[in-house]
């Protein structure tokens, strides 16, 4: 039975946007119990199409023509009040931005109960009980505590699960999930996917699932839509599209998927370590957050030691909150480690400060996880790139010339110099971040989830770029990620972290194919789309 039917939908963008239509001539149907995956490049109109179904397009963005029919009603013709009745109860949505999608000043429990309240379901006590149950179902440890927590007290992954709980609260007919698992580590992701699968089976819930992870698509999709520049370039049953893509863009996408299987073996050369980390410690004490609240102590990093050799890439993987970022930030001294040593060229930089630190710092640079927030919105790219060099004494002119070179190196042309960060796409911004890290000619780069927000084709570009730069500039890299496929693709060695400690470390092929610990095995098992990868591999061979 067709539940949702979209015909010739076009969504106009406001004047001055990068193109006229966010989405053009979109057609698809969704039957109950069906899972439809939408994939495509960043900015191709996936989110806008999904928002249109909710009647929640941002200001200035409006449906131009076409129709959306849900259960016999034309959504585009409904009044705001009529829409209110549908939203949250019959159609619900998980938004793309998990970190900012929760009201920071409201307790999690209240935000979930609100869904019931808005639709007059259940009574006070029941709402709470139901909220608890939902939190449990999405796999949040200690729901009793979480229900009383404010969003900022939860990790990114936990927040995303709260969002999911909210969307599932009234067991809607349609769930629209816009990249719901980007911030989750593979095990949690697997758990969420199972939950959705379960609801679909039991309730016949239909799902529109937007993602850039082809592994997920392969695991759950019934049908797939591929979008590019606002148009659907390919649509069909999942196996057809995934294994037998027709459109060149789809093919390019699928080719770009990173593989777990590492082809070339790494040559093992003994060299003196460039960076020697010994017994690194970092403890956070989150002071009294609320009135008369208790002091909470988090041992984010406990006794972490490893060596990094010149020209080597080490991947750090592990569940969300395991201390990966904290290690990275301690190394570049954005955080002050509580204990341990970080030896670079034999000197301990862990406890340096002032001019000494200033001198050492240029050898260690970082690429930040979030390309949006790590670029000053009010600075032009030329300044972002040159100011570091100028700070280290390079004349203006020379710095500018160098910046142009760098832009070329990361695949941007020099007109970029004059533009502001918001004038770039996500992938381009990430490259600016890389160019900035390279500007000071560091010996070591720490990349914190540098590609997790990017769609596979851009992700592939960036990874290629990093690999190439590493070769050319003989860089060492510390690559923090939760995507094991990405780790497999770029790393020489892998460190697996759990609860602030290193549980396993070794060459990439060893760790990913023959792990020593149960924890690593469970991570590997949870990687989505492993069957699909094998089929793809088979198809490629054949």
């Amino acid at each position, binding site marked *: 039975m067709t539940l949702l039917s979209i015909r010739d939908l076009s969504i106009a963008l406001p004047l001055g946007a990068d193109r006229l239509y966010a989405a053009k001539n979109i057609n698809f149907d969704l039957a109950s119990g069906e899972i439809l995956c939408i994939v495509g490049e960043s900015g191709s109109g996936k989110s806008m199409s999904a928002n249109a179904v909710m009647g929640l397009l941002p200001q200035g963005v409006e449906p131009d023509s076409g129709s959306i029919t849900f259960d016999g009603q034309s959504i585009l013709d409904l009044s705001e009040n009529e829409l209110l009745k549908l939203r949250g109860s019959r159609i619900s949505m998980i938004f793309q931005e998990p970190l900012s999608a929760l009201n920071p000043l409201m307790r999690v429990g209240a935000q979930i109960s609100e869904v019931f309240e808005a639709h007059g379901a259940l009574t006070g006590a029941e709402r709470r009980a139901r909220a608890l149950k939902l939190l449990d179902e999405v796999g949040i440890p200690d729901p009793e505590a979480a229900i009383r927590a404010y969003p900022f007290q939860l990790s990114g992954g936990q927040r995303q699960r709260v969002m999911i709980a909210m969307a599932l609260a009234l067991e809607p007919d349609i769930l629209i999930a816009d990249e719901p698992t980007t911030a989750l580590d593979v095990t949690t992701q697997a758990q969420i996917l199972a939950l959705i699968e379960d609801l679909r089976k039991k309730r016949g819930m239909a799902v529109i699932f937007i993602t850039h992870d082809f592994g997920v698509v392969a695991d759950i999709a019934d049908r797939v839509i591929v979008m590019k520049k606002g148009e659907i370039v390919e649509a069909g049953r999942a196996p057809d599209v995934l294994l037998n893509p027709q459109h060149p863009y789809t093919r390019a996408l699928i080719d770009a998927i990173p593989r777990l299987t590492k082809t070339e073996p790494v040559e093992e050369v003994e060299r003196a370590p460039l960076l020697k980390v010994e017994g690194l410690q970092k403890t956070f004490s989150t002071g009294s957050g609320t009135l008369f609240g208790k002091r909470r102590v988090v041992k984010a990093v406990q006794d972490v030691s490893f060596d990094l050799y010149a020209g080597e890439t080490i991947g750090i993987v592990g569940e969300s909150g395991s201390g990966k970022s904290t290690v990275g930030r301690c190394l570049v001294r954005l955080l002050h480690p509580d204990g341990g040593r970080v030896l670079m060229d034999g000197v301990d930089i862990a406890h340096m400060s002032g001019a000494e630190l200033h001198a050492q710092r240029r050898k260690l640079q970082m690429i930040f996880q979030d390309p949006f927030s*790590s670029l*000053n*919105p009010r600075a032009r790219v030329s*300044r972002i790139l040159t100011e570091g060099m100028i*700070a280290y004494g390079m004349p203006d002119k020379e710095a500018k010339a160098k910046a142009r070179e760098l832009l070329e190196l990361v695949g941007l042309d020099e007109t970029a110099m004059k533009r502001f960060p*918001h004038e770039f796409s996500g992938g381009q911004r990430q490259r600016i*971040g890389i160019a900035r890290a390279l500007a*000071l000619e560091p010996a070591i780069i720490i990349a914190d989830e540098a590609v997790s927000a990017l769609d596979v084709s851009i992700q592939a570009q960036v990874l290629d770029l990093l690999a190439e730069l590493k070769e050319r500039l003989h860089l060492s890299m510390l690559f923090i990620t939760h995507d094991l496929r990405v780790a497999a693709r770029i790393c020489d060695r892998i460190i697996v972290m759990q609860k602030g400690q290193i549980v396993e470390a070794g060459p990439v092929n060893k760790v990913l194919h023959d792990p020593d610990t149960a924890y690593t095995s469970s991570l590997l098992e949870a990687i989505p789309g492993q069957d699909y990868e094998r089929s793809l591999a088979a198809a490629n061979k054949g």
Partner: protein
Amino acid sequence: MKSFWTRFSYNRGAVIGLVILTLVIATAILAPFLFPQSPWKMVQRPFLPPFTQDGLPLGTDALGRNVLSGLAHGAYVSLLVGLVSTIVALAIGVPVGAAAGYFAGRTDDALMRFTEFFQTIPSFALAIVLLAIFQPSLTFVIIAISIVSWPPVARLVRGEVLSLRTREFVEAASLSGLGNLQIILRHILPNALPPIIVLASLMVAQAILLESSLSFLGLGDPNIMSWGYMIGAARTVIRTAWWLSFLPGMAILLTVLALNLIGEGLNDALNPRLTRKSE
């Protein structure tokens, strides 16, 4: 620079504001040429209503002085008071607030307690006391107004900086080897600008009004014609000659309006996100 103007002129209110302010500034500069006679000169019988006599389009005040000439000459002082005291207040408040917010911890505590120190005396009373100590010459009026108006700036800037300093782009800048001063100047303050601009445009208005309140209490500089003086002087005759306080009141209102519009326009123009809209 060109794109700045394009962006600025995209905001129609801002252009209107700029036109008004330009007129006011022009009047202030040209007053001595337009009205070479002293604005204090008693030229006609007192309390001449507007539009009743040629050459005195806005009538005369309690001593028979030309109101139009007073308005023109007063523009200079009122603008001077408003702009200079705002600049001084910003010059104190922004660094204090930025340092407190950026270095946080002890520095913050010390600077904020220092700010509180100035905050604790009711600002109007402090101005009065300061003017009792130093004679109310224009300079001291400006100094007094500046001294009482910087603490809110410091508090506001601190709040903004406190939240900006944890942003990733600030961390990135410090990784690039920038010093604290450079980080504050180039990365933090530009992003804290919108509320500061709004506040500054409000402060100019407040300073002009404060000067008039002080004049109202007889604490202005009696040797210099200002709008505040005119309102203050006219208030006792408000019942018999309402226009005497209404006219300078309108002048203040228009100027304040213009400044607010410009402030909003500046904000738009300085916001790179709005750039492409106009092109």
